[in-house]
């Protein structure tokens, strides 16, 4: 499983982004997207295109964690969103690894079938099924942990809303949360 996480300010400025891979189930924490290294901008395309859906869901669902909001089948990319009350958006793109596998029972949802994506055989792994309740829960925990760090950044008197978060400590906090939950 590979992840691309980004934070967007209320005015759609990207203020933080990071790519990482899963550390669960023997993962080494390195992102391996299906695009070649020269096409990493695809992640940004896909994740930003989900903003329309996020903005629609934002006014029907009052929760902060909006769960899985969008899927981009050609790349088997799943996008989960978290909204802070002050309007910042946390978006997480997750892409399951491309493994040849005959186990179709796990990918029971039509989205999975259409995308032709394959799933790992171990159903307990978060990476196995991007829309399972376990994954939703793990992403929720991940988002909540980042939210805490984000609030701490936002409370700093030297931080203005919409500014890029450059702190290496923040980055390491995100990496640690990714290791812990995803």
């Amino acid at each position, binding site marked *: 499983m590979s992840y691309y996480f980004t934070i967007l300010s*209320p005015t759609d400025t990207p203020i933080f982004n990071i790519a990482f891979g899963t550390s669960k189930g023997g993962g080494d924490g390195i992102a391996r997207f299906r695009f070649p290294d020269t096409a990493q901008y695809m992640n940004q395309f896909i994740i930003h295109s989900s903003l329309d859906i996020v903005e629609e869901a*934002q*006014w*029907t669902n*009052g*929760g*902060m*964690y909006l769960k899985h909001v969008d899927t981009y089948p050609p790349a088997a990319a799943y996008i989960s969103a978290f*909204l*802070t*009350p*002050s*309007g910042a958006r946390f978006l997480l793109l997750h892409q399951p690894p491309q493994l040849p596998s005959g186990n179709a029972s796990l990918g029971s949802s039509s989205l999975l079938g259409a995308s032709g994506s394959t799933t790992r055989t171990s159903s307990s792994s978060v990476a196995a099924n991007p829309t399972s309740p376990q994954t939703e829960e793990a992403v929720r925990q991940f988002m*909540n942990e980042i*939210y*805490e*760090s*984000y*609030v*701490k*950044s*936002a*409370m*700093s008197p030297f931080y*203005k*809303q919409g500014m890029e978060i*450059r*702190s*290496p*400590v*923040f980055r390491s*906090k995100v990496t640690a949360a990714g290791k812990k939950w995803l």
Partner: protein
Amino acid sequence: MAAPRHSAMLSISNASTPQSTSSDKTQVQQPQSPAGTSGLRVPSNRKTIYDRHLNRSRNAELSRASFAYLFGEMVSYAQRRVTGIQDLEKRLNEQGYPLGLRLLDLLFYRATSTSSSALSSSSTSSSPPNRPLRILTLLHLIHGPLWRLLFQRSADALEHSVSPDTPNEYMITDNEPLVNTYISVPREMSMLNCAAFVAGIIEGVCDGCGFEAKVSAHNQPTEMWPSRTVFLVRFGDSVMEREKVLERAGVK
């Protein structure tokens, strides 16, 4: 360049806290990566803002004297180079606005991190509070939780404009605003209300939640409450339009 600075840092941390050799070793290694790569300055006790707990000051109170002093300084700072009362109120408003944006996040963070939800008296479960989607929930959030966070009590009244011309106007009343307790406004500036600062905070909260609004503070003294202040919240057209759509959709 990096080496002497590093050693200086190490000596500071050594001097302030005597450590065992094992923890010393970790101290040597940790500052190196952030300080070396980006020039980040780490406090000598190695606690960055990310290591501090946001709930620690939850029930801590500030002395009124220091608050009054600070706020007095803010008012006199805002008073420099202003052209009139409106300009002064605008400046106070602008000082409050970023505070409102921050308080909003802090309010929700504290409500989610504690099981006993302090945010809303109506929600009894420990589930995280919802973002306000409708005007009324937003105003209740301001009237209750926000006011309690700021002043340790709820606001005194929440009213909707009765005039059919201005359905976008709401009023939040505070009988005795804390910010005005130690301020006596000169006669020639009788229109001034320094609670414009609080109005700015409210505006920040409304804007942060996606409710574009203009908020102003007005003196409305009564015999019993001489410093009674009304905060007039005027929502923008886009908010009123969305409100109608959400009402039809049955969103609460």
